[in-house]
């Protein structure tokens, strides 16, 4: 909202994605500046989640480029020719990008504390004491310090999603991706998760948020992008677009979700 800079962190250029014969992304361009909260909305099947998943290579990129910082995602460019990165190199790129899933995907066999500690200890080689201290601080930050020893199965959906946010933050990423983080939650639990995301935005985190929460887009978003049919229909200041959409499709979509 206020921490946005002019330095681009994420550049998506001419992104296409095919699933077999299905052409689901048809040339997406999107730039996200450092500290910006970029909200992406659109009907289901519009390709917004697929675009997000391309950013950390959970989906391969059929055509186009994505770069985060100075890193080209998924490829190395040598003399104008793209070479696929090795699995290890892809893993290294993913460490800089946190992801929060619609269905939380917490590790059910580990307590909240160990969910958060897992990656710092196993991926970064952080020592257990320091990782635990950091994990407890993060759980406190998302309001769940007293749930550290609970298994995901003992937590509500909203609590699980907040643990999942803490788990992603534990890797100290420079970018956070949110894939419909509140869509699987009971309405009364949505607010807690959105509040955590708001705090995160205020702290200056760069975020790409795929969501149906128009209120969140209006209040926290620095940019709102409306996608439909695998293309960006409209993109700009969230308050302007919500108040005065320029395209018929945007207008129609907003009238149905507002």
């Amino acid at each position, binding site marked *: 909202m206020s921490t946005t800079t002019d330095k681009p962190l994420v550049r998506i250029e001419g992104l296409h994605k095919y699933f077999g014969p299905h052409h689901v992304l048809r040339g997406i361009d999107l730039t996200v500046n450092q500290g910006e909260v970029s909200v992406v909305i659109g009907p289901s099947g519009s390709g917004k989640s697929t675009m997000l998943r391309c950013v*950390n290579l*959970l989906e391969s990129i059929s055509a186009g480029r994505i770069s985060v910082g100075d890193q080209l995602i998924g490829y190395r460019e040598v003399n104008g020719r793209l070479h696929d990165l090795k*699995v*290890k190199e892809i*893993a*290294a*790129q*993913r*460490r800089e*990008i*946190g*992801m929060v*899933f619609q*269905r939380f*995907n*917490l*590790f*059910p*066999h*580990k*307590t909240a*504390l*160990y969910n958060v500690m*897992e*990656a710092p200890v*196993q*991926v970064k080689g952080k020592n257990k*004491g320091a990782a*635990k*201290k950091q994990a*407890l*601080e993060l759980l*406190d930050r998302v309001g769940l*310090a*007293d749930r*550290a*020893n*609970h*298994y*995901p*199965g*003992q*937590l509500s959906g909203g609590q699980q999603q907040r643990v*999942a946010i803490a*788990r*992603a933050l534990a*890797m100290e990423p420079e970018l956070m991706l949110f894939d419909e983080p509140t869509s699987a939650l009971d309405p009364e639990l949505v607010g807690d998760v959105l509040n955590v995301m708001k705090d995160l935005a205020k702290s200056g985190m760069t975020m790409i948020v795929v969501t149906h929460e128009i209120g969140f887009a209006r209040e926290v978003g620095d940019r709102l992008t409306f996608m439909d049919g695998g293309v960006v229909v409209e993109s700009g200041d969230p308050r302007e677009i919500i108040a005065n959409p320029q395209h018929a499709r945007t207008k129609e979509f907003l009238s149905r979700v507002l």
Partner: protein
Amino acid sequence: MDHHGGNKAPVLNDSVPVRHPGRWISALVILGLLALMIQSVVTNTNFRWDVVGTYILDTKVVQGVGWTLLLTVASMVIAIVLAILLAVMRQSDNPVLRYTAWLWVWFFRGTPVYTQLVFWGLVAVLYPKISAGVPFGPELFSVDTNTVITALVAAILGLGLNESAYLAEIFRAGLKSVDKGQTEAAEALGMSNAKIMWRIILPQAMRIIVPPTGNETIGMLKTTSLVLAVPFTLDLTFATNALANRIYLPVPLLIVAAIWYLVITSLLMVGQHYIEAYYGKGVDNLAPAVINPAAAKASAAMAPSAAAEPSLMMDDPEDEAE
């Protein structure tokens, strides 16, 4: 009548339960049959319980139990290691690995374990010497097959390789049962494929894998009686059969063997219970979230200090495991 709270405790409905005469009748019939059976087993002198008592702790029998246990454990260990490898190979991107694993399962599951045991017993006939060397070049070392593949090794190999094919399918099913979101979450955190498998997928798959593997282990306990085919002649069934042939009393020695198999099976079931409980943590055996509300409140109030001095506040369920 106030149905909606108020200060008075509600008057509980003291209704007359439905009667179940069928339950009583079937219970009586079954108990009656059971009593008849016990009476016949106790009073029929042909069972020769005195002989059972004489031989149940016979040195040969107890040693047979030991060998049977060794065969079971050793072959299951080999089978489990191979099965994990085969299940991972089946999921590999490399088609050569995939088809190799498929072929292995096809062959070892498709031929009788008895045939395989006879084969391992005869391997020295096919290959009298085991040697290693450069193909078409000099030989590096050479040993007599019989000194390496003893009857015991042949029995363990025969049982273990055969079992690995069945376990591979069980492990494959277990790995497939874990939600794809788990892999994605671990990938998004930048974990390596090996760590995702060992720390995230396999521990969850074990919940599905353990019960049928317990089944297979108990099956293996009794399949060890086929090692006669190798021939390996120290296991429990062979020992009790040999004694039975010597004293011409097959029934009491069959009972001796059956009692021992039952005892070991029971012990294995106890072990399986604890393994299941371990891998079910977080899913099957969830403790109630908050047992003591006062303690929960206290720990919530102390949360900041918990962050500063975590080891005092938090018990580590995983530290023992690692």
